[in-house]
Structure formats: C-alpha cells, structure tokens
C-alpha cells in the first residue's frame, strides 16, 4: 500500500490564468462544466473551460453595478435554459446564456431589503430559486410564475427570524431546504412554510458553510474550527450527530467532493497563513487530510471532471487555476472504483456517488442491504478450508504476500495483512487487547484519557469476530466494558454499517471500523468538552432578546429601575415590527461584541463608557406602602399579660398618630377599648350582674363573653382581616400579636376570676332560648334600656353566626343598621374627618339608601349615649369594617377553602382567656410571619423576634439544610464530654470563666475555636479591645470564629 493516507500531499496546479481586469468576486461553473462565470462589480465574464479553448474569455458584459456581487450560481437542471443567478446587494438578477455565449438578463428579483447572502437553484426544478438575506427572510422564487414578472415578489417568504447566511436545497426532495443563521440550521418544508420543521443547534458559533451531504445529512462548516455532520431528527430521532472534523482555523466551506468519501474544506485565512488552503478529507479519517491544494486566497472552488477530477479555483489574485487530482487520491477517498459512473459536477452539484459516500451516515436501518453476505459460520470456527477464488478488489491489490509458513485461509491472510498494515495508523487512544487472527478474533478498546477533574474517562471495548468469508462477509461486533456515557447501540449500528458497506465492495473494513469507533468515542468526548468550554458567541433564534430596561421591586419598599440611556433609544433591526423577540436579531451587533478584541472594534464600548450609559436608580417607594419602618420600630408587639394590652394599644395609637397614620391610630384606639373592655369584664364581675339570672357553673369553653360581643373578638378579627386585605401587614400583624393569648391558663390562675361565669351563664341561657338560625336576633331584646342588655343582643347574634357561618345576612343587616344609625346620628364633622382618613384604605359603599331604621335603633343610641364619643367611633368602625370584613370573609370563604368546607368545620367557640379564636391561628400566624419578614428586611431583628414569639403554631421548618453544629462541653479536668453543668466524673463545674475563674453560671459565651470563654459580660469587656483569648492559649478568637463557620 503506497498511499497509507496519513501523509498529506500537496498538489500544484496544472494551469493558471490571470484575469486582472475583471475584478471578479465570485466564480461559478455551469452544470456541464463548459463555462465559468466570473462576476464582479464591473463585469460579468463567461470563460470557456473546454479543453481546446480552455481559459478563453468568451464574453464580457459591462455590468456596472453599484455593489459587489456577493454570489452567483448556474442553474443545475439539464435541458433547461442555461441561466445564472447573480446577487448583488439586495437584488438578484437572472441571466441566460444564449447559444452565442451572450448573457441576457431575464429577471430582476428585488424582494429583499438587505444584502442577499446566498442563493441556491433548486436541483430538481429548473424554475425554483432560493435566496436568503440579512433581512431575515428566505425567499423562494418561481421564475415561471407570472407573479414574479408582474410584481417581482417571491413565491414564498420564509421568515427565519434571523439573517440567514446560507441556504441550500435538498438534493432529493424538492420541498426541503436548509438555511443557517448563527450556529443554527433550520430545515424548511415548503409545504409548511410558516415555521421551520426542524432546528439543529449544530455549532456554538457562526456557521459559514452549509451543504447537504445526502437526503438527510447536513455538513456545516463553522467559525469554531469544526465541520460537523448533522442528521435530520425526523429521520434519525436518536442519532442526529455525526462525525466531527476539527481543524485549526475557522472553516469557511466544507463541501462533499464528487467522489467517494471526499470532503473539501476551505479555511478562513487567518493572518495570511496557510490555513486558507483547500484540503481534501476522507470523512472516515479525520486525523489528517488526504490532499491539500497549494492555493491561496481562494474565493470560490468548483469541480470538473475530465479523465480525472479537476478542481477549479478562483482566488483573490484574480487567477483561475485548475488542479488535477491524482487518481490514487480519489481512490483513497473511496471514489476510485471506476465501475461507478461519475457525472460531472460543479461545486454544489449533487451526485449519486456522494450519496453512497455518506451512505453510512444515512443508514440507520437495522436491516442489512439485501446483497450483503452474512457471516457464514460462527466466528470461533477454526475450520480452515480454502476460500474460493474471488475477483480481487482494489483493496486487495494493496495486500502483501504473507510470509507465514502456515497455510492460511484467505480470511486469515487478509486479516493479518490488514492488521500489519493498519497497526502504524492506529490512533493512540486505541489499544488491541486480544489479537487472535487465526481464530478471527480481535478486541480493541478505547482508553479515554483520564480527565483532570477526577472523573474517569469514557471507556469502551469492541470484540470483532471475522467470519471466514471476510472480507466479503462482514464481521460481527460486540461492545464490551462500555462506560455509561457510551451508546452501545450506536456503536454497534455504526460499526455494522461500515462493515457491511465494505463487505459489499469486498473490501477490508478493520481500519474503517476502528476509525468509526474512534470518531464516535471522540464525539462523546467532544460533547463533554463542548459543554464545558465552548460558549456561543453568536445569537441563536430561541434565546430571548435581552432586556435592556426594567423595574423590580426588591426588599420591602425598593424599586430598582434601569434602562437604556437616551442616546441609545432603540437598537432594532430594520424590521419595524417592534422590539424583536429573539437575541438573534442582534446578530451583527453581538458578533461585533464577541470579536471586539480581535477586530479592535472596542471604539463603540469606549464611547459607551464615556457617556456613562449604565445607571441604576433605586427608589424608596415605601410611602406607597400602607406601612412604614418607623412604626415598626415604635410599635409594641408583645405584652406580658392581657392587662398591658390596653396600654400597648394606646401607645401604638400614639405612634401611629405621630407617624401620620391617623386612620390606623383610630383603629388602635378602638382596639385599646376592646382590650380595656375585655379586662374590665374579667376583672370587674359586677358589671355583669345585670345579666345574672341563674348562678350556675358554666363550661369554661363557653364562658368567654367577649368572644361573642361584636365589639369584642369580632371587632379585632375584622380589623385584622381588613388591614391584611389592604396589604397593611404591619397593623394586622401587630394587632394579631398583641391579641394573641399565649397561655391563657396563667391569666386564670393569676386573677382567679371565676365570677364572670355568671355572665356566661346568661349567654348560655340565651343560646338555649334561641337556637341558631331562628329569625332575627332582635326578637330577644327584652326591655333593655341598659347598656348591657344591648350588648346581649348582638352577642346572641354573633353566636348564632358561629354556627351558620355561611348565612350571615342577619349580621350583615345588623351592621348595616349600625352604619345607618351612625350616618343618621353623626352630623358632618365626625363623618368627613373620619372618612377622609379611611378613604385611602377602605372602600366604603354607600349603604344609607334603602335601609330604614330598624329595631336596633334604640339600642344603638343607648349604647352611644352610654359610652360617649369614643364608642361612637367604635361602633362606626365596627360597622364599616365589619361590612368590609363580611365581604372579605365571604370572598375568602368562597375563594379559598370553599363554603362547603366551612360548613363542615364550623368554628369552635373561642375559649376563655382568648380574644382571637384559636381556630384561626394559622391565619393569624400567616400575618405575623409576613410581618416578621418585613421587620427582618428592615433590620428590626428584636421586633421580629417579638413577633415570632407569639406564633401559636410552630411549624418546624428549620429544615436540615446543612449538618447542624453540635456544641458539647468538655470537662477541663478529666476531658470527658459533659452533659449538664457538672462533670459526671470529677463533679466539678464544667465551665469556668476565663476572666474571673469562677464557674460560669448565667449567660456565658465561648469561643468556638479554642473553647475558652466565660461570663458573657466578662467576655464582652475583654474582647472590646483584644482579639486574643484571655487564657493565653494563643487563639485569635475574633478571627478564628469567622473561619469556623464557612
């Protein structure tokens, strides 16, 4: 084998001709390879490529365009007018080459609004042309349709969202075409032009070249120095990724060669080095190029077939060159099989050879091709009968005569030869574990390099058993020791395909299989590496357009705003449909950003910097909130006993007044009266004597009259819910805290008030007299001119309400009555004063109409007369708030737990000693927690602790996120871990203060690094100006402690 493939050869041209005056920027070769069109801004020239008159200028047309020609292409269909499409700027012209070699303009297609980046003739329909442009549209032109003649409008416009850089028709299906923008390839089906049928995220950076390799395989050449094969997911749901060819420079084009497995790549020239060369690769072996053309600054290249394959190039130095490819090179790429018909191709032409060349990529079916011979015998068979004579294939020509004296079967001979031959070519990452060629067994494995991060590399091994019929029969494979990342089936399938293809051609396949295996394994590795290192530099169409302005509420009352500076009003693409949705709309802008450093385009950012573009404004919008920090500091949140409630409420009212929250102040005033009231009733049993009809012991549960009183628990509850509803968590939370009874038993013990049972008894009686739901509660008014008689009635009402919680109309009426009453009584001053204060928070509907005076009238007036103006206010707030409450509550009943659940679970009566119903504790706890959160964010930690202290249901959500720190005391004498204050062994006090050397009783503080410490007071004073431990142990306590917890 003379051409083992590792060496790249450098070709030189067989002829070159300079056309200096043409200044052509594109070249394209027509389908017959007779003519080449050299197109530039000034001239269009047709060059003959036929041998006798080769490189002769046939025709020159002064074009005189204003813009450079970006791309030109001859139509690909035989037996149709030999037309060529030439794109310059936004326009695409169609010329026809007449028999007299003259160009005649047929059409001018002016459908694009920005530069046309690529065009492609449909290889199956002579009249179809696709163009793509930066204006984000891919236009399909039907040159036969009258539409184009009349309106110059395209047949279809595919909205790619993003300026497509390449567009290519599928060579087999005429409705399918591919376009690429950024790193993505979009596949379009013209039968469904609204959106792409598929997105392929092929590359992380910009794709420069796009080609169809076969019916469903796409070759992409990209800025990230790779050429990738991607398969359409529709046909290959699992295996969309093919082999990857990595180069040293960004790749401009990658096109399949018209023979075998050849692929020609063109690199983007970097700093005029050799990387702009054209290279020919065998796609099965991406280790090194098969052939390299010694050409510089290639603008365009195309193939031409005479006796051999010739490559035509047009370079920037205005020279047309022709390179003849040696036959063995063609053969190396698997194209040397002369039996296959070859047709002439231009650069973008289709080819059946190409189809077979990338056949392996396509072939996903499990069934082997019909003609493929199956292994004839079990691979372990040692039978050595001679293999029948067979016509020798080209590969066999390479095989050397074996010197082995043992008579070998043909298989063994072929295998041994092959093994000898390929051994030097095997990549380092492959090792042969088991070589038993005479048995037809071979095992090789991939030893991935150990990754630095400590992860073990990917490994996999393949056991190949060659049948006797090899190479005409394909070997079988078994994947062994594969690590998890490896898709065994993929390897098996691919290897089987390679083997079968070779077997069909009667060629050896070991090397091809190993190469396949290597590329699969490499792709696994590259996938891994990709996610770690590569990052996209070019916009992709499904990344949303970046937000350049915004406003966010943060913390408690902060509004953080940022926006575009005025001089950058709009960064928008030309499409005037508003702000684009995807980042890809910023394509050019972003790429500038990404390549800023390379291209020295940092001018823009420097300009930005100078103008101080980026200002964030933080607004303190707490005035918009119904609460403020000052009140949080001033409020009393907790009381030591219920008798302090009144004072706390009054203080809170004062704070509110000082804080310009007069409506809240009124509420607090009302609350203070309720507090007072409840205490009074507890302390002063004489007040209830009026109701004492019978003296009997009443169950404690029912003995809490304040809970039935509308101006008692209900008032507090409605105030809390009202404020909560309006977002004033502060008032709601504080009130909930103040009126929460932490441990009612303590009050009872301390006060010894059993006397007030008397009052409850009467309620009890009332309850029995009037079962719930029995008409208006006002019927129970018994000649009551006394204050407490009045109170009685609503009590009953409220009580009955407890039991039929979803029919509150009575109580609502009741409240309305109160309001009506109030409206009637209060004249002017009070009204407006109070209303305007409340107005901002409450929505008070007009209830005065339609409600006549009711029989509650007298009782109310007596209440007011009896209690004075304060109570006037209470009754008012009660009325209005309760109404609000009714709405709130009924809403919340409907909305939150459903009225049915309320029916099922009626509230239990409020037990004695409580003002707030313990059944609602979870609700109150919510308010408290919310308020605590606010206090926390304000940094009022003490107040927060106070609020949290009143939580009734401690839901231990202090989840174990990190392993907890355990502190234990070690006795300083016997070094035992001590439980409790004294050491079990030496009976001494375990902790001794480091300062006073006395047992550290009371509050003590210890260093968590050295364990020394003592009385908190002593420690505080010690560490005020020292950082080292007091015992002299050398511990820098202050410093160390910051390090302990990390």
């Amino acid at each position, binding site marked *: 084998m003379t051409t083992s493939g590792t060496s790249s050869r450098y070709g030189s041209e067989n002829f070159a001709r300079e056309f200096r005056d043409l200044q052509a920027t594109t070249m394209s070769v027509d389908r017959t390879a007779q003519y080449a069109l050299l197109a530039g801004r000034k001239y269009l020239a047709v060059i003959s490529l036929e041998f006798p008159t080769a490189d002769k200028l046939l025709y020159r047309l002064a074009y005189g365009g204003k813009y450079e020609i970006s791309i030109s292409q001859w139509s690909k269909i035989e037996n149709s007018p030999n037309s060529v499409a030439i794109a310059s700027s936004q326009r695409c012209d169609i010329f026809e080459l007449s028999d007299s070699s003259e160009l005649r303009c047929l059409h001018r297609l002016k459908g694009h609004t920005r530069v046309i980046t690529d065009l492609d003739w449909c290889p199956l329909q002579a009249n179809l042309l696709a163009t793509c442009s930066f204006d984000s549209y891919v236009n399909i032109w039907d040159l036969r349709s009258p539409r184009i003649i009349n309106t110059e409008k395209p047949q279809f416009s595919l909205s790619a969202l993003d300026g497509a850089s390449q567009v290519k028709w599928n060579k087999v299906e005429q409705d399918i075409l591919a376009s690429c923008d950024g790193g993505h390839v979009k596949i379009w089906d013209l039968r469904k032009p609204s959106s792409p049928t598929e997105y392929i995220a092929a590359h992380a950076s910009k794709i420069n070249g796009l080609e169809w390799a076969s019916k469903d395989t796409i070759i992409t050449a990209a800025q990230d120095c790779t050429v990738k094969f991607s398969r359409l997911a529709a046909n290959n749901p699992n295996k969309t990724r093919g082999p990857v060819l990595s180069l040293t420079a960004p790749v401009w084009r990658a096109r399949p060669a018209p023979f075998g497995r050849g692929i020609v790549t063109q690199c983007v020239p970097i700093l005029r080095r050799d990387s702009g060369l054209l290279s020919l690769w065998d796609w099965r072996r991406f280790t090194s190029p098969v052939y390299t053309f010694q050409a510089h600054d290639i603008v365009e290249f195309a193939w031409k077939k005479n006796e051999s394959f010739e490559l035509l190039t047009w370079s920037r130095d205005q020279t047309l060159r022709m390179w003849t490819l040696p036959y063995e090179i063609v053969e190396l790429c698997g194209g040397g099989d002369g039996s296959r018909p070859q047709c002439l191709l231009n650069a973008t032409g289709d080819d059946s050879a190409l189809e077979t060349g990338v056949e392996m990529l396509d072939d996903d079916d499990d069934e082997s091709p019909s003609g493929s011979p199956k292994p004839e015998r079990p691979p372990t068979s040692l039978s050595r009968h001679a293999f029948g004579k067979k016509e020798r294939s080209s590969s066999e020509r390479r095989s050397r005569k074996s010197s082995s004296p043992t008579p070998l079967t043909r298989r063994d001979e072929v295998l041994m030869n092959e093994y000898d031959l390929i051994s030097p070519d095997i990549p380092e990452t492959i090792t042969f574990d088991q070589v038993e060629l005479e048995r037809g067994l071979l095992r090789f494995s991939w030893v991935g390099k150990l990754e630095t991060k400590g992860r073990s590399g990917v490994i996999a091994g393949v056991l190949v058993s060659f049948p006797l019929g090899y190479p005409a029969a394909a070997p079988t494979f078994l994947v062994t020791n594969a690590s998890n990342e490896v898709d065994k089936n993929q390897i098996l399938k691919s290897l089987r395909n390679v083997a079968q293809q070779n077997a069909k051609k009667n060629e050896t396949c070991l090397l091809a299989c190993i190469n396949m295996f290597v590329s699969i394994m490499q792709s696994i590795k590259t996938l891994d590496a990709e*996610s770690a290192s590569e990052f996209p530099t070019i916009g992709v169409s499904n990344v*949303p357009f970046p937000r350049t302005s915004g406003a966010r*509420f*943060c913390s408690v009352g902060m509004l953080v705003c940022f926006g575009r500076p005025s001089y950058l009003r709009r960064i928008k693409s030309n499409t005037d449909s508003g702000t684009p949705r995807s980042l890809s709309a910023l394509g050019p802008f972003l790429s500038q950003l990404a390549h800023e450093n390379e291209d020295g385009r940092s001018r823009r950012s420097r300009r930005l910097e100078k103008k101080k573009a980026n*200002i964030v404004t*933080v*607004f303190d919008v707490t005035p918009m909130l119904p609460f403020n920090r000052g009140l949080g500091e001033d409020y009393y949140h907790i009381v030591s006993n219920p008798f302090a409630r009144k004072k706390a409420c009054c203080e809170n009212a004062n704070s509110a007044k000082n804080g310009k929250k007069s409506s809240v102040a009124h509420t607090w005033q009302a609350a203070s009266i309720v507090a007072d009231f409840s205490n009074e009733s507890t302390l002063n049993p004489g007040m209830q004597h009026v109701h004492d009809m019978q003296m009997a012991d009443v169950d404690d549960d029912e003995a809490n009259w304040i809970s039935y009183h509308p101006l008692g628990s209900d008032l507090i509850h409605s105030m809390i819910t009202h404020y909560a509803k309006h977002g004033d968590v502060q008032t709601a939370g504080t009130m909930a805290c103040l009126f929460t009874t932490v441990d009612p038993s303590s009050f009872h013990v301390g006060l010894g008030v059993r006397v007030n049972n008397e009052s409850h008894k009467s309620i009890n009686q009332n309850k029995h007299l009037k079962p719930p739901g029995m008409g208006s509660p006002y019927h129970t008014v018994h000649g009551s001119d006394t204050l407490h008689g009045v109170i009685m009635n609503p009590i009953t009402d409220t009580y009955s309400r407890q039991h039929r919680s979803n029919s509150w109309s009575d109580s609502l009426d009741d409240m309305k009555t109160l309001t009506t009453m109030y409206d009637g009584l209060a004249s002017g001053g009070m009204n407006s004063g109070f209303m305007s204060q409340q107005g901002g928070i409450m929505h008070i509907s007009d209830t005065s109409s339609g409600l006549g005076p009711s029989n509650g009238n007298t009782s109310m007036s007596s209440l007011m007369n009896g209690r004075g103006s304060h109570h006037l206010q209470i009754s008012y707030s009660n009325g209005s708030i309760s109404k609000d409450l009714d709405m709130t509550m009924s*809403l919340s009943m409907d909305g939150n737990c459903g009225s049915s659940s309320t029916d099922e679970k009626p509230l239990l009566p409020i037990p004695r000693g409580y003002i707030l119903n313990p059944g609602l504790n979870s609700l109150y706890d919510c308010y408290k927690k919310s308020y605590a959160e606010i206090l926390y964010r304000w940094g009022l930690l003490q107040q927060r602790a106070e609020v949290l202290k009143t939580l009734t249901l401690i839901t231990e959500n202090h989840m174990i996120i990190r392993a907890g720190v355990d502190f234990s005391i070690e006795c300083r004498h016997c070094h035992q871990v001590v439980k409790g204050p004294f050491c079990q062994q030496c009976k001494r006090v375990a902790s001794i203060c480091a300062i006073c050397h006395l047992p550290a009783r009371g509050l003590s503080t210890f260093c968590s690094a050295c364990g020394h410490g003592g009385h908190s007071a002593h420690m505080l004073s010690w560490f005020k100006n020292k950082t080292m431990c007091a015992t002299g142990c050398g511990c820098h306590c202050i410093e160390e402690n*910051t390090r302990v917890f990390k």
Partner: protein
Amino acid sequence: MDRKQVLLDYVASYPDHQLSLLVASTESGRMSSSTAFTVATVDTGHEDMIHDAQMDFLGTKLATCSCDKTVRVFDVNINHGSQTFVAELKGHEGPVWQVAWAHPRYDTLLASCSYDRKVIIWKETTEIKPDGKKVVKWDASFVYEGHDSSVNSVCWAPPEWGLMLACGSSDSSITVLSYVNDRWVASKIPNAHTLGCNAVTWAPAQAPSFDKTNEVQPVKRFASGGCDNLVKIWREENDQWLEEVKLEGHSDWVRDVAWSPAAGLTRMKIASSSQDRRVIIWTNKESDGISWTPEPLHVFDDVVWHVSWNFVGDVLAVSGGDNQVSLWKKRETDSWECISDSSKSCIQNEQRTL
C-alpha cells in the same frame, strides 16, 4: 356617600430618571401633599447594557449584571444616598441575563445566569484581618454547567424550602438546584418549554391559609414561562417536578412571570408578560393551584420584558421594550389602574382595550 379615591400618582420616566410622588385628592381637586421618593442613583460602571439589577432582602446590597459579562455588587444606603462599589464578579463568558439574591439566612449568596450556559452561585466571605479590617471577598462557590444553551432566568425558592434555585434555559429545560448535604444536586425537567424557557418564579411558601383548622401540607411550586407561549406551573411530588397546570393565554413568547408574594394577600396570583405586548394576571380563585383565571391587565405599546410585584402584592411594576416603567394597582372596582404615568392616557388606553 360621595367617595373619592386618594390617587397616588407618580411619574417614572426615562431616561431622566425622574420620579416624583404626588398624592392628590381628587375630592378636593387640589394636591393635598406632595412627596418625592428618596432616590439613589448608582453609576454601575458597566461597559455595556444592564440586563438586570436586584437588591438583596435587606435592601442594602445592589447587584447588577450586564452584557459586558460581569456582575457588579454595590452597597447602597438609600437613606444616606451613599453607595460603594464592592466587587466585580468575573466568571461568565457571555452576557449575564439575570441575578438573584438568596435569603440571607443562607449566607450572602448571589446567583447569576448567562448566555454562556452557566449558572454561577457567588458567595460573599468576610475575613477579618489581624488588624481588625474587614475584607469582603466574592468567589464563585458553585458553577452549574448542565445546560446546553443560554440560561435565561434564575430564581431562589422561598427560604423555607432550603437553598433551592430554579434555572430556566433556552435549551428548553428547567433545572432545580438544591443544596443537600453540602452538595448541589440538580434535578432537571427536560423539555419544559419547547424552544426554551424564559422565566421562572417561585410560589411563596406560606400561602395564607384560610382553612381554619387544618394545617395544609405546604407544596413547593414554581411557575415558568417560555417560547411556547405558555405559563406552566410545576409542583414537587416525591422529589419529582410535575407539570401541574398549563396556562394558555399569550399569543407569543412569554418573557417574564412573577408570582405575587404572600404577605397579606388573599389569593395566589401570577403576572405574566409576553412578546405579544400583553400582561395577564392569573388568579387562583380556588386556592387549589389548578384553576387559574386570566385577567388581561393592559396591552402595551411594546414588548413587555419585566413584571414585578411589590412586597405586599398589590402593585405591579411593568417594563418593556419601550424603555418605560409603569406601576399598576388593582382597585376595589376590580379594574387595574395605572398609577404611574403623569398623563391619564394610560388609563384611557386601558379602557379602550378592555
């Protein structure tokens, strides 16, 4: 009773960053008082567009992220108007889209997500030097690289759930990172939104419980919006994230979702903004997390990029492609009212569209 609303009216206009509060009583027809909000202006020094800015829970630290691939942290004291640059966090290799502060209960952590497919969790460490000086350092404490495309949104879960971060990416998946046993564990929801997820937001942990007696087992939920024009709500069940409900209402990509905070609120609400220039408020009337009623807020002039609830959940800040910020408040009459624009045009527009 002649009842008039006290109208909060303030102007937030760009680029001049003027914001003044006018409290006007329409009843009297005159301004009763006029207060200007305290304003702190922070020159971030970013070299390019800012994509997000957030303050921490305590309102003392500001983090901004930008197209220049950096995150910058500032100490801001709004009352004194003082601001100091603390650190520039470099580590991303692409534009940084969003930042999020973790609850201070878990140290000072900041999450950022970027176009470079990474999510970085930054940690602030304070070291006290022997001379008593405090040195604040910011380091990347964890880098998550499990996404295949740009990560567009990060959001910390309510602190009750522990350290937990949801990340939405253009690779159409959502990852929930949780810190368990000193390790970050990723649980991925593949194909959460076809074409990509643009925003994630967590439901508050303490939904107000109106159920009187029962303690409802708290449910971990979050909402996400994506390029499939949907808002989806996810619920954790047996350590797996299940799609609980799909909210269809937008006709273009959903750009942002915001779950209203729980404080003082009666119902679960989600605001979603979209490329279709609309903002929709989704209300969960049943509190079951399943039946959501959409309510269109307004049709804006341009794409709406951001929605943000204030702490109480009664005011919504909306911002978008037109560089404008508007604040919306729900009135008792059940209509949403723009309370920010000085002109009344906004309200009129709203009425026209409704």
